[in-house]
């Protein structure tokens, strides 16, 4: 099998290319580490009290509401002299919300109703989050006050909540608390399965044409189909290794950070489903990338086409990340859309809820595209045009 000789030589060359090592192996690990650090920073920022830096205009802190707010976990309460001073603190970012609670708040509340002024910056996510926290605290205080009043009138507290909502979470135990990982991981696997081959594919055919080595190779008695097979297999290995590098990046970072509730429990069934989806996906990506490299006259032309192709891949990959918010994640047609179906399928498999019909259809769809691309590659490589373009 001469394709094996070509395959081994391509791999040897690729592993000696710093661009491939960086693009296919270092970047997935590094970028994922940085992204996970960023998510960790956001989480620490929110839970560490950045959203509960509150200013209560002087006098308001001694009211019942002021005292209740000071009990919010990690709350930092500042007491500016007036609203203007509070707004200045808000503008500087020293606080995320300013509350103007009247000194006579408790008396007003006892007489029926009281008004609290809240100043916040809707363009600041932490300020908006701070408002939500305060709304919850106010709602809780309202509930306590109302319960006390209806108690005084001899009514049961259930009068306040005639409809009781019983919440029952049907999420799999594996999925609980790992939402961030579940939305990130499928996206990362897809993106790096594609970008892993990006740095080496333009060199494989377009680069060989440009340097003149393709003619040397075609002068050997090896069939052109074997040459294409050897090269595309080497490219698939790099794409697959890059996708695995992305998975490794998530797992390693997760282990290092030991973030609570971000662990996935992969079962043999879910691993089998992931492999069944990723292998055809890699076959399709490799074939698509190779078509472009075979078509292009030189490296520069190849890289221009590859950049355009990357947007075609990126759009469904990004959409797969947010599809849960659109309500389309369970639509029947989703199974037929390349890349998007793998995004949904990987998410399900990682949650321990493998939909084998989705896995099967996704695999078939990607294999069909890969076979079509393979036929195009064979037509191109067996024509004079692969060497001579007038």
């Amino acid at each position, binding site marked *: 099998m*001469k394709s094996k000789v070509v395959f081994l*030589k391509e791999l040897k060359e690729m592993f000696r290319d710093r661009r491939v090592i960086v693009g296919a192996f270092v970047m997935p690990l590094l970028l994922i580490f940085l992204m996970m650090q960023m998510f960790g920073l956001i989480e620490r920022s929110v839970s560490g009290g950045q959203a509960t830096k509150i200013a209560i205009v002087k006098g308001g802190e001694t009211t019942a509401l002021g005292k209740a707010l000071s009990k919010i976990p990690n709350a930092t309460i500042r007491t500016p002299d007036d609203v203007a001073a509070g707004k200045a603190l808000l503008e500087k970012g020293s606080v995320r919300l300013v509350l103007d609670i009247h000194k006579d708040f408790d008396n007003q509340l006892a007489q029926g109703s009281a008004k609290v002024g809240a100043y916040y910056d809707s363009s600041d996510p932490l300020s908006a989050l701070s408002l939500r926290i305060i709304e919850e605290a106010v709602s809780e205080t309202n509930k306590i006050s109302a319960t006390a009043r209806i108690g005084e009138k001899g009514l049961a507290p259930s009068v306040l909540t005639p409809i009781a909502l019983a919440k029952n979470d049907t999420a799999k135990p594996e999925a609980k608390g790992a939402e961030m990982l579940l939305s990130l991981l499928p996206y990362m696997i897809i993106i790096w399965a594609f970008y892993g081959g990006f740095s080496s594919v333009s060199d494989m055919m377009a680069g060989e044409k440009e340097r003149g080595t393709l*003619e040397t190779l075609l*002068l050997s*008695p090896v069939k052109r189909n074997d040459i294409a097979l050897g090269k595309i297999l080497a490219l698939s290995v790099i794409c697959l290794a890059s996708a695995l590098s992305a998975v490794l990046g998530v797992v390693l970072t997760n282990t290092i950070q030991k973030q609570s509730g971000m662990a996935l429990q992969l079962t043999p069934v879910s691993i089998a489903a992931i492999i069944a989806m990723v292998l055809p996906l890699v076959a399709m990506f490799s074939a698509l990338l190779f078509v472009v490299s075979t078509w292009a006259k030189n490296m520069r032309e190849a890289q221009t086409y590859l950049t355009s192709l990357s947007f075609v891949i990126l759009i469904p990959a990004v959409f797969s990340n947010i599809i849960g918010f659109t309500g389309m994640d369970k639509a029947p047609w989703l199974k037929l859309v390349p890349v998007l179906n793998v995004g949904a399928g990987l998410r399900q498999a990682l949650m321990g809820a493998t939909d084998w019909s989705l896995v099967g259809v996704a695999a078939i769809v990607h294999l069909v595209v890969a076979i079509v691309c393979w036929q195009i590659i064979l037509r191109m490589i067996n024509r004079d045009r692969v060497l001579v373009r007038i």
Partner: protein
Amino acid sequence: MVQVFDLSKTFVDPKRGEIKAVDHVGFEAKPGRILGLLGVNGAGKTTTMRMLSTVISPTSGTARVAGYDIVDEPARVRESIGFVSGSTALYGRLTAKECLEYFGQLYGLDGNLKASIDRVTEQLGLHDFLNQLCDKLSTGQKQRVSIARAIIHDPPIMFFDEPTAGLDVLAGQAIMEFIESCRNQGKTVVFSTHIMSEVERLCDDVVVIHEGRVCATGSSAEMKAQTNSPTLEQAFLTLVGYQRGAQ
């Protein structure tokens, strides 16, 4: 032996239409002799060589190389030829030895690969840089490795397509000596060039190609006599119909 019968190649350009790169070319190259394809840039020499080496297919006509038809038995033809050109390159991230091993395996030399590498290393003096990456070699060293790659399977037919292009005098001299050694070994050599001095020194037979067509065949002396010219250069200019100030 290389026998070329009425070989033509037409390319189709969407803007310029059909371009006849080679137009009914025919000639014969014999073992132990060097046949020179002489022509200006764009005359059709490289296209002819590429068709003979089966990397592109003819539009019409055919040729027999080492007894094999280039259209019907292309793999057999490629097994029987070595091709060296000024533009063929090596893999920069492989060492010279790895390049030779790679092509040796592609030519199916698995059993006697080491012996073949030793032979070409000795023949072309590659010892000093055999384990260096091809990217680090000088132009002359690269050309020697390129030749070694082309003869790793010891082919009976050798094609040289402007092999001295871009080389200095010493490296060019070494290539010409190598071409002479191929003739001395009884190989059939087809050598394309536009440099008259190389033709006069090396070629036993000359085929002048101009605008894709054969203008003349014979030895250098015969062409000079035929055109009544004192030099091959003048003979060539007469044969291709060159007129002073016409271009």
